[in-house]
């Protein structure tokens, strides 16, 4: 069966993304589950390149598989998982899976036949330049607000995780 190269890459990347997500659910050790989620993040970066968003693909690899995974691995290192603990109720995983499949089926019925427009917009030739232009002219206020938010979150997380000396 001959498929075009675009479809072939879509199928490979989709296989990687869904494999990473499903293995994340089924691994029992925390570190293995984290590393399989990294496979999902990197496959999604491949998807962003297919969708002509190269800057977002680079940011995805830097932020998700770089910073967030390392942060979560540090959290795993600093905490200890206990094996003897209160379990979950008897039929809870089955109920959750059935409900989520129902939700997915309903949404799929709504989105399954969207074709979308063929894109003739030349803004995707210089992706980083277009993002920079839009970010500093049209989206300047959210940009400054996000920088304030970064400052607030930085101070907040340091304060929350600080060890109290006097107690």
């Amino acid at each position, binding site marked *: 069966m001959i498929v*075009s190269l675009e479809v072939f890459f879509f199928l490979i990347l989709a296989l990687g993304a869904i494999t990473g997500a499903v293995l994340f659910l089924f691994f029992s050790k925390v570190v293995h589950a*984290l590393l399989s989620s990294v496979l999902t993040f990197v496959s999604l970066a491949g*998807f*962003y390149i297919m969708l002509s968003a190269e800057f977002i693909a680079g940011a995805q690899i830097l932020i998700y598989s770089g910073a967030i995974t390392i942060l*979560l691995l540090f959290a795993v290192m600093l905490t200890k998982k206990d094996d003897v*603990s209160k379990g979950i109720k008897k039929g809870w995983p089955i109920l959750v899976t059935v409900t989520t499949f129902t939700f997915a089926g309903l949404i799929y019925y709504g989105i399954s036949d969207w074709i979308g427009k063929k*894109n003739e917009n030349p803004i995707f030739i210089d992706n980083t330049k277009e993002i920079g232009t839009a970010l500093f002219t049209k989206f300047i206020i959210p940009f400054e607000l996000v920088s304030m938010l970064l400052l607030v979150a930085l101070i907040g997380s340091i304060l*929350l995780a600080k060890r109290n000396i006097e107690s």
Partner: protein
Amino acid sequence: MEIPLSAYLTLALILFCIGIIGVLIKKNIILILVSIELMLNAANLNFIAFSKYGFIPGVEGQIFTLFSMTIAALEVAVGIAILISLYRKLGTVNLRDLTNLKEE
């Protein structure tokens, strides 16, 4: 042959549903945070697919994806700070052990 928009939307739907199942089933708080990241990634894929193939193609979808990634990273940082202080107080990262507000 071109890939239709609904293929990207369906893939994002599958990842989102796996994220929902992860949030509701996992016992470790760290894995719940990773499931939330998975859901945010699925929404980002939707944004970028609509930025290229949607009804008004433009760069706004990618700009919003940048903001979404920033907020996701911040949320993980603050979540882990809360987790560390919780671990110091209670000694466990199992979600089912946090029963202080439960009535007997």
